[in-house]
């Protein structure tokens, strides 16, 4: 978007109003899909007009313009409405934004956008537009598809929702999954795109204003605790840097502190009947990594004990949550020895044997075991199955390094390799 840094209204402030205005329109009885279209047009107009003429009450401005668009749309449809424009012109100015109201509006809309009748890709797209206030173009860019494709995905999703009743609360678990999907998409993506990770954090933060559900707070904590490490995850050449090699000085201490605070508050609400859920446990593991001053100081026994809890949340963890079993295998490798960790991964061969992460974890455990030839083979297998260029290149590097260390080149080539990449 064409946000001028000098204008009184930056994009973030504008987008924060989206769920408030949209929820207001829908609660007043407007159709969700029509209201969403109208607000999208109002947002584009705001970006055009506001830098030169900032409104006194931005929320009322957006509501008024979106209402005019709705009226226009109805008029062109039926060519009979006459005087609505006047009646829509003067919205009462709202009181200063109340945090609880912002949360309620966000939750109200998230339940719609994350309706179980929609496929995950549609839930994500609709959430980013209707709750996040991103333009169709920005969402299309974030997912590397043409704008027309994303526009079609969004309008089909809205058509699916038309006529459905929303008189019961939605499924919060689905909402949390959608928000986490937005986050992980952003976490993996290159930084020059729309910052979906930050967007997911913003939306989850808004959501936590409306619900005391510990898992919602656990999800926010998990995002913050992972996001804090993002600046160290890629080096200046665009190469992935794994957790154990990251420059911990680059981690965002403020974000970590907030994540820990949010997590502790969520965990404090647990009871014997209601142990911490998936996101809280994952956040606890992330917090332990964030807490270590160096990779060597990582509290692996504590991490393993959280992984035991995580695996315990599923009846059949190998089938239901293989990622947790794989994460636990790494912790087992660090606590009880690499061989024990490798044995844990064996159970996952049928489920994850074709996924790059399974091979990468085995490469890591073989390395830990000192078996560099096996590590090189495992990393090479992982590279063949990688799903991103950055991961693929990273795994090829790991393979080549392990291979070179296992059998130093006989044809007396260079010796500068280790000094140069500084990672061995």
């Amino acid at each position: 978007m064409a946000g001028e840094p000098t204008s009184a209204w930056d994009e973030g402030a504008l987008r924060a109003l989206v769920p408030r205005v949209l929820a207001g329109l829908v609660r007043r009885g407007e159709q969700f899909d029509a209201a969403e279209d109208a607000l999208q047009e109002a947002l584009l107009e705001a970006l055009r007009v506001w830098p030169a003429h900032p409104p006194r009450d931005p929320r009322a401005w957006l509501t008024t313009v979106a209402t005019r668009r709705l009226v226009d749309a109805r008029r062109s449809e039926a060519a009979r409405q006459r005087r609505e424009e006047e009646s829509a012109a003067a919205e009462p100015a709202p009181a200063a934004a109340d945090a609880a109201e912002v949360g309620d509006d966000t939750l109200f809309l998230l339940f719609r956008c994350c309706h179980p009748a929609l496929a995950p890709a549609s839930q994500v797209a609709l959430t980013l537009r209707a709750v996040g206030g991103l333009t169709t173009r920005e969402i299309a860019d974030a997912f590397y598809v043409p704008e027309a494709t994303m526009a079609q995905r969004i309008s089909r999703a809205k058509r699916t929702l038309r006529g459905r009743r929303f008189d019961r609360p939605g499924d919060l678990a689905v909402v949390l999954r959608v928000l986490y999907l937005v986050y992980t998409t952003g976490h993996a993506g290159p930084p020059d795109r729309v910052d979906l990770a930050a967007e997911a954090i913003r939306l989850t933060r808004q959501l936590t204003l409306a619900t005391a559900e510990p898992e919602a707070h656990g999800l926010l904590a998990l995002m913050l605790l992972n996001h804090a490490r993002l600046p160290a995850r890629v080096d200046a050449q665009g190469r992935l840097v794994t957790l154990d090699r990251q420059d911990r000085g680059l981690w965002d201490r403020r974000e970590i502190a907030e994540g820990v605070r949010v997590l502790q508050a969520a965990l404090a609400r647990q009871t014997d009947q209601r142990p911490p859920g998936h996101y809280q446990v994952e956040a606890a593991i992330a917090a332990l990594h964030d807490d270590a001053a160096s990779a060597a100081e990582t509290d692996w026994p504590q991490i393993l004990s959280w992984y035991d809890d995580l695996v315990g949340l599923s009846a059949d963890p190998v089938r239901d949550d293989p990622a947790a079993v794989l994460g636990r295998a790494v912790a087992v490798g660090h606590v009880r020895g690499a061989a024990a960790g490798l044995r844990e991964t064996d159970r996952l061969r049928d489920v994850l044997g074709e996924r790059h992460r399974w091979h990468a974890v085995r490469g890591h455990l073989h390395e830990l075991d000192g078996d560099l030839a096996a590590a090189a083979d495992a990393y090479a297998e992982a590279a063949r199955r990688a799903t991103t260029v950055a991961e693929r290149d990273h795994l090829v590097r790991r393979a080549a390094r392990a291979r070179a260390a296992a059998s130093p080149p006989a044809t007396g080539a260079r010796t500068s390799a280790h000094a140069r990449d500084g990672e061995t």
Partner: protein
Amino acid sequence: MPKYLLLKHYSGGPEPHHPFPPMDQWAPEDVEAHFAFLRQVRALLEETGEYVDSQALAPTQTWVRYGGPDAAPVVTDGPLPETNDLVAGWYLVDVETRERAVEIAAYISSEPGPGGGPLHEWIDVREVLSRSSSPSEE
């Protein structure tokens, strides 16, 4: 300006200039030099205003065809012969002339391989048919 697709292959194409092992068997510094070169290719094409797109493909290949009205799709994913054309990725460039596309392809093919010398990899140069006909041809 015409667009050209410059394809890299995992397998297939003319007899290789010289054989070379898979990348995970190269010395680590050669791997780094190779990746650095590829970054530089992209930067260069962006700099000259010729870059359109580049993509890498996973090495897994599946052939699919219609199986008939009440049948499942027919799927074949190998094993395929060593000589099978397996595309690894491409650069899409928008250039003044075919000669320039060939020049860029040759430059890509000079990418450093094991030992640091050029890989001499064959690059498949394909012209993309334009969607619009020029006024002079109407």
